[in-house]
């Protein structure tokens, strides 16, 4: 979709190493405004490394990352976050001993949208009324589902152009996984572009526009969500069909 539009986030032939170990090989990903794009792959396929590369925690050895046409690979994390990327980390990783409010405030650490903190918080509360009830509670005492809400809320506090999500389904009960994906859809409908990295291919493809499949650091498939759901190799390897 949106063939003519410029991508919000683009990875061009990105190759990444951890020391001598090759992690990502010639990775190219395009994400257009308003899309939900998923990156699928099993363990150790390089999903998290891709996100770290986008956030500048790892500098690619070859290729570059562009945000809205501007090259961001080589900048440090703080500058990249400031330009409008925020992340919901794997396993949520809230600041467990800080209150929910403090967690949200940290999320807005580099806000540049000029709005007041309360306005941004209000947006989070409309998405997650539960978070408002828990505002002064320590994040570590929340249930897994609530922690997920706070983690997403924390990332949204930065008012990002694009939201990166690292395995949002991990460690959550099936009911909560569904709920989480519904929320992702809802956030997307409000205009935030989303790049989600997942093992749970079924779930991710059910909400995504397009998807990429990553295997040992290489993209082996790229198609629309529907196309991937129909692909025979996908059905065998990731969608649990015999």
């Amino acid at each position, binding site marked *: 979709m949106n063939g003519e539009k410029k991508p919000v986030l683009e990875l061009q032939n990105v190759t990444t190493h951890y020391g001598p170990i090759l992690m990502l090989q010639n990775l190219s990903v395009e994400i257009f405004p308003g899309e939900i794009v998923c990156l699928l792959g099993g363990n150790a396929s390089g999903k998290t490394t891709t996100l770290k590369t986008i*956030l500048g*925690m790892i500098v690619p050895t070859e290729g570059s990352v562009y945000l809205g046409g501007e090259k961001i690979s080589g900048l*440090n*994390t*703080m500058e990249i*976050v*400031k330009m409008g990327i*925020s*992340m919901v*980390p794997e396993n949520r*990783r809230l*600041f*467990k*001993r*800080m209150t929910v409010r*403090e967690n949200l*405030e*940290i*999320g807005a*650490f*580099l806000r540049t949208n000029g709005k007041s903190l309360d306005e941004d918080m209000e947006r989070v509360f409309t998405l997650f009324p539960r978070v408002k009830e828990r505002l002064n509670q*320590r994040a*570590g*005492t929340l*249930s897994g*589902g609530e922690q997920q809400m706070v983690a997403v809320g*924390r990332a949204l506090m*930065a008012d990002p152009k694009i939201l990166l999500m690292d395995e949002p389904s991990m460690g959550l009960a*099936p*009911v*909560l996984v*569904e*709920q989480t*994906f*519904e929320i992702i859809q809802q956030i997307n409908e409000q205009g935030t572009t989303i790049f989600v990295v997942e093992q749970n291919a*079924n*779930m991710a493809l*059910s909400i995504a526009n397009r998807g990429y499949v990553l295997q040992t650091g290489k993209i082996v498939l790229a198609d629309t969500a529907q196309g991937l759901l129909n692909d025979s190799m996908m059905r065998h390897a990731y*969608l649990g069909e015999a």
Partner: protein
Amino acid sequence: MTLDHLKSSLKPGFYAGIVALFISVIGMIETFSNRDIIHGVFSISHTFLVIIALITGYFSATRAQRAGIRQHGIDRRAEVVNAIAGSLIAGFVMGLFLAVLVVVANLINLRPVFVNVTPKLIDLLTFGRPSLAGSIVPLSMFTIVSGLGGALSLFRSDIRRLIVTSLLWFAFAGLISEVIRLSLSRLGVNVARKFVTTRGLTPLGAAVMLALIFAIVYASQRLRDRQRRQPDQSSPARKRAVRFRSWGLIFVLLLVLPWVVGRVPSDVLVLVGIYVLMGFGLNIVVGKAGLLDLGYVAFFAVGAYSTAILTSADQLPNIQLSFWAALPFVIGITGLAGLLIGAPVLRMRGDYLAIVTLGFGEIARFLALSDWFSPVLGGAQGVVKIPNVVIAGIELADPEELYYLIMFFCLITLFISWRLEGSRVGRAWVAMREDEQVAESMGINTIYYKMLAFAMGAMIASLGGAVFAVKLNTVFPFSFSVNVSITVLSLIIIGGIGSIPGVLVGAFALVGLPELLREFDEYRLLLYGVAIIYMMIVRPEGLLPSVRRGRELHEDEMAQDAWGKPAEVIPVPANPELSG
């Protein structure tokens, strides 16, 4: 009825015996016998032994009670018997250790190996009957005292707390009897002599002191009880007024303190102030930013040396500033030193950081000692003739006056620490301490905030160094050993990492007391070690913990409690298509 449960009392007695034997053999008992709590009646060493025996008695009594209940069920009379019997057994076991020491010392000369087992020690342990038969004395003595400790466990908890708190405060008053003497002697030597002597309180003074402490403790307990029963209903404005008045009172007390206690204690207060200041500084580095810095003395040294060089006429004769003109440079130079050391070091984490900073702390001292720098830093001779501080034409020469300088600096740092607590910077530090990687992905520039913490800590230490330099009017490399770093770190650990009042208490306990009681000096590191191990096991959050740290350290316990509660069910509409 079997007596099996009384076996549980053997263990506390055994441990207490080992501790008592240890502090006797290393000479602590003899050293502290030179100072009395009550003149001629009760020395500090007796206090040590009695406290050990009381604690032993108390614990063994509660152990015996519990073991008795496990075996024979609840029976009030049996409990009393068990408590007393248990504590007597423990006391007997403890006494046995010292009795054996007396017997052995009588039979063979232990001194070639244990140089501190002197005739005087035996004399002390037997209350002046150093013969073989004298070994009965510690045996019976500790059995009885431990029995008293056991009896203490039978009181109602509020009465017990009253007794224990009063006795502890009384022991404390005895420890600082020198300060009491000096301040009373301002009222007149004859008045003072009635209550306190150079060796401790007089019996009259002890009685007055005990009565006074008892009354204060009793009143404060009643007050707290009443507050607990009916919480304060007064308006916020009134509450604020009350709080304002109590802070005002504390402030006034602090202002007049040096004139009440006199010169020598004021001198100690200045030293305590310097450590309080450094405690605040290191608290920012360790407590808030979570960077374990073992080389904090380096910044103290840079502060002291730069003050010395900039103000002394001897070094760099063309530069001779007043203290106040030099101060901005001192702070700036030390801040720069902080950044300079921080830049390479702060990329390391945890243990590595600790070791590298330890190295830098030592390097600072060696640089000061080196011949290469000696034209500027004075080498082993140090820098001398540092002029006193002058404020508005008044020269701060006496410790009573210098006290205000250090207090001024302490208040400024206190204010900074307090303001940092809820600030954006403070939040970034907490986030960084909790999860550095996620903090970074939230856009917190971790290197910047680490450097900021390091530089701020350094600048605060430089204030301490500056006061140290003008206090002694000289600066020598030997003052800046690793012990300074260890003391500052210990005092914030014991007071409670991240806690502001904890720093005050820690500094008084670790710097003030050993200064007032020179006897402590020899055993300083031993006592630090014991105190830190005890704190780490029993109260990892410190004596006066900060709210957040207390939270962090008891997190695991709470998480365990949370398992007991039923999980919440979040209703979600069924969506069959999605479960594919």
